[in-house]
């Protein structure tokens, strides 16, 4: 279970202190598919980076299975990201000179899996998201957008994370491919019992998730 309490994030800019997040409170149960919507600059990405331990909040707490990740040391945050969090990005962010298989194996390496077991696990994951053997050995530039996002999802799930954080996962795809990717994420939530939090602009997608949070000026205004 993910519990966010009184989360605040401020930045110092030339024009004074900017509050990106103001007193955010939310609770998401394990295995739920939640979406965060809101306009640009509403604080969606900031919230996502706090949840993924990519950044440290100014105040408040983020409890994942009773551990406050905001208070972890940098090294422990790295380990937390490797084992407990999976990221899916809008621009896929695969490592360009590694093949699809190697990209997934990289995440497994960081997750601490022994070298001998990585390849089989990566192949299994990639097959699960729908990449055939030939495609698995291609570099990202030789894969379509949808295929790259599938690799990205396989990478996010590699270490059986507690939470998958998706930043506009379908934002760069056509509506048909976007729908397929969404369905894939949705089915994985069910089969792997993973919590998924997706930031999205797409109201169709937001409408199909278990929970939706709308952010405005750094605060949650609607929760359903």
């Amino acid at each position, binding site marked *: 279970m993910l519990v966010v309490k009184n989360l605040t994030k401020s930045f110092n800019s030339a024009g004074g202190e900017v509050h990106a997040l103001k007193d955010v409170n939310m609770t998401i149960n394990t295995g739920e598919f939640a979406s965060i919507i809101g306009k640009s600059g509403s604080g969606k*990405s900031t919230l996502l*980076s706090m949840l993924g331990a990519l950044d440290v909040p100014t105040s408040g707490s983020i409890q994942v299975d009773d551990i406050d990740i905001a208070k972890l040391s940098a090294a422990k945050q790295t380990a937390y990201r*490797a084992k407990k*969090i999976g990221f899916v990005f809008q621009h896929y962010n695969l490592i360009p000179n590694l093949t699809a298989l190697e990209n997934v194996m990289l995440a497994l390496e960081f997750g601490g899996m022994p070298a001998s077991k990585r390849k089989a696990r990566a192949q299994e994951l990639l097959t699960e998201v729908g990449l055939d053997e030939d495609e698995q050995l291609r570099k990202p530039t030789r894969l379509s957008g949808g295929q790259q996002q599938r690799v990205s999802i396989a990478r996010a799930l590699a270490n059986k994370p507690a939470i998958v954080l998706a*930043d506009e996962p379908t934002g760069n795809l056509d509506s048909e491919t976007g729908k397929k990717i969404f369905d894939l994420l949705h089915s994985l939530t069910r089969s792997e019992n993973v919590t998924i939090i997706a930031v999205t602009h797409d109201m169709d997608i937001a409408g199909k998730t278990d929970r939706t949070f709308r952010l405005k000026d750094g605060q949650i205004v609607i929760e359903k």
Partner: protein
Amino acid sequence: MNVVSRGIKNALRSPMRSGAIVLMLAISIGLILSMLVARSSVNAKITEVKSSAGTSVTISPAGVHGFDGGGDPLTAAQITTIKDTAHVSSIVATLSDQLTTSDTSLTPSLELGLFGARQQRSSTDSTSSTDSNAAAPADSSSTETTTTRQAPTPKTTVTGTTDQNSVSTDGSDLVLSSGSSIDGSSSDLVALVGTSLATKNSLKVGSTFTAYDKTITVKGIFKTGNTFADSGLIMPLATVQTLTDQSGAVNSVIAKVDSSDNVSSTVTTLKSSLGDKADITSQVEQAAASVSSLESISSLALAGVVGATIAGSVIVLLAMVMIVRERRREIGVIKAIGGSNVKVIGQFVSEALTLTIIGAIVGLSLGIVVSGPMTSSLVSNQSSTATTQAGPGAGGPGRMFKGGMSQLSSNITQVTGSLTPQVFAAAVGITLIISIIGSAVPAWFIARIRPGEVLRTE
């Protein structure tokens, strides 16, 4: 795939760029090796020249240069002064003279040639003109002076010495092909005859010949390999002094100094005690002057090593900074999915190392090929300077000695670039320094990249 193999793979990611970096690195590493080779070879030569220079100090009467120039011979009192100077362990005194065919029964074995004829013409010119002026000043005319000129004749050089080995041209003991040594301190009417002169006059051990109206006995035949020396005679110093009516006079003294460290101070002492009556030169001083150009090559080579090291480090540094900046997002992604700073830095260091190692292999091979020619070219470019600098110092008092010195000077330009394991190890060490410097700063950049950037830039 681990950190190291990812780094190696990344190094080969852009063949064109990696190729350019490797090439630039290879040139600087090649230059480092060449300069190290040049420096060590030149330094070895400097040590060799300095150690072979010996501890001799040569004192000759001021103004005398072989048989040229003018001035008074050194006196017995001056020789005593030299002998009593601190650090002078022993001295060898010589008095040389030239025998014309009227002074001796010997036929000179040295052909005059164009050079000898010219030398003699100028000396007979002055003699005959003085004679005619003295005898009949009124009748003298330039035409008569010219007609009285005698045909040039070769002469035989006689060297009176306290040590027969001083005539040896290569610094070792005089080689006798037959007979026995003479006692340099005696005043016997004995001589050692050069092999050419002996052959010309059919002289053997025990033969006699006439010189200065006295009968001289041949005690031995010597061979130096030097045509000038082998056409001469060696006699005890006192004998020559008596025969030429120059009691106590010498025209060259070679003083041995107890250690090479004391040569300079001994030269200074002698210069002050003998004043302007004598010209003093030492091999150590000449060697120092001769190797000064080599010393400048050595410092030049050191500057080259430092410069090439800096250049190499800057190349790797800038290349890695550029690569890190370019892959900022990628580094952010790796950190976001759980890659620690150590792993990311390790990957980039391994990338820098791969580039440096490839550059080192190419550069060291390049260095092995070019270091020899580069050393020779560095040294030969400086050889004209070396000769100029050695020139005034090398003006020794005796012709044979001068010959020996110019041989020493010409050896200085014969520096061969040789690659020793130590030099190679030094080059490899410097290459390692380059890759460490080249990776340290990018590592700092990498550590500063926050994983959150990956989201913020989207």
